[in-house]
C-alpha cells in the first residue's frame, strides 16, 4: 500500500519535471514588460542589437543569439546589474527577482531562431527560480504606483 503511494508520488514528480523540461520556466508578461521598458530601445525586439536607439550609439550592440550562449547566468547577471560601457547598470533600481527575470528574458531571446543545445533546454530548470513563488516572499507583484514628481 505504502509502495503504491510512493510510486504514485514519484510518477507525479516525473510528470511535473517533464512539464518544466519541455516548457522551461516560461517567458511571462513580467519579463516582457521589463524588457520593453529597459532594454528594447537599444537591444531591439529580438535582442539582435537593432533597437531604435542602437544606430545612434557609439558602439555596436551584440546579437544575443551569438553572445549569450557562451555566457554563464552569473556573467549575464553581472552585466545587467553593473552595466557595461554605456549600458546602464540596473542593480540600484531593480530588485534581485527583477534582474533574474531580465537574465531569463535575455536567455529566451538568445534561443530565437537557432538550434538550441540540449543542455540549454534544462537551463531554466537549473536556475529553477520561477517554480518558487518569489512574489509571495518579496511582494514583487505589487504594481509600481505611477508617481508624479512634477507637473509641467
Amino acid at each position: 500500500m505504502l509502495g503504491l503511494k510512493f510510486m504514485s508520488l514519484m510518477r507525479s514528480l516525473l510528470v511535473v519535471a517533464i512539464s518544466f523540461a519541455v516548457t522551461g520556466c516560461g517567458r511571462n508578461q513580467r519579463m516582457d514588460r521589463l524588457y520593453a521598458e529597459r532594454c528594447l530601445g537599444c537591444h531591439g525586439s529580438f535582442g539582435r542589437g537593432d533597437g531604435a536607439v542602437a544606430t545612434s550609439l557609439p558602439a555596436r550592440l551584440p546579437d544575443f543569439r551569438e553572445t549569450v550562449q557562451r555566457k554563464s547566468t552569473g556573467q549575464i547577471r553581472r552585466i545587467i546589474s553593473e552595466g557595461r560601457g554605456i549600458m546602464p547598470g540596473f542593480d540600484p533600481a531593480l530588485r534581485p527577482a527583477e534582474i533574474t527575470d531580465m537574465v531569463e528574458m535575455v536567455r529566451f531571446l538568445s534561443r530565437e531562431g537557432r538550434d538550441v543545445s540540449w543542455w540549454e533546454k534544462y537551463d531554466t530548470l537549473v536556475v529553477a527560480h520561477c517554480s518558487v513563488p518569489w512574489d509571495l516572499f518579496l511582494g514583487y507583484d505589487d504594481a509600481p504606483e505611477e508617481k508624479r514628481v512634477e507637473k509641467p
Partner: protein
Amino acid sequence: MLRNLKSRLGRTLFFLPFMALATLNHGFSHEPTNSKKISGPQRREVRIPIRDFRLIDQNGRSFDFKTVRDKVVVLAFAYTTCPDVCPLSTAAMREIQIALDRIERSSVYFITVTTDPEVDSPKVLALYAKRYGVDLSDWTFVTGEEAVLRGIWQNFGVRVVKKARGLVDHTSLTAVIDRTGTMRFAYYGTAPDPKVVIEDVRSLLARRSNS
C-alpha cells in the same frame, strides 16, 4: 471497473494544474513592443537666466553652481538607469570634453544633473562617470534633495515624471550656459551633435563679455 475509472479521473485532475501551467508558459511568448519614439535633436537659441543652486556631487561633497559662474557651462539632465537618450547625451558630452583643447577646457565646465535622485546616490553617480571614462577634473555629476532638484528642473524647463523605480520620463535637455549664468543654447531630443555644441561653446568663449 468503477474504482479504476475513479482512480484515473483523480490522477487526471491532479495533473491538470501542471498541464495548464505548462500551456500558460508558452502562451505568454509574444514579442515586446515599444511605441516610444525619440525625436531628433533640436537646437534653440534662448536667453534664460539660471539661478544659483547647491547640490551634492559624485563624491558626496557639496557642489555650488556659483563656483563655475566664470565659465561656459555645458549642463545635461540624465539619470543612470536611463535606457534610451541619457547614455547618448552623456557620451556626446564626453566627446565634447575630449574635443576641446587644454586652454578651452580651462574656461569650460561640465555638469550632469540627475532626474532620479531616488536611485542616483553619489556612489551610483561615481560608478556611472567611471563607466563613461569621464575626466572629473572639470565635470561634476550632481544629485540632491528632490525638492531642490525640482526647482532646478523648473528653471531649465525640464519636465520630470517618475514611472517606476529607476524609470523616469524627462525632457531630454543639454544646455550651454554663458559666463553670466544665462542659458544661451538648448538642445532637445536625442543627444546633440558634439560638433554643433563645440561651435556654440567656442562662440561664447570668443566673446569677452556676454551681453
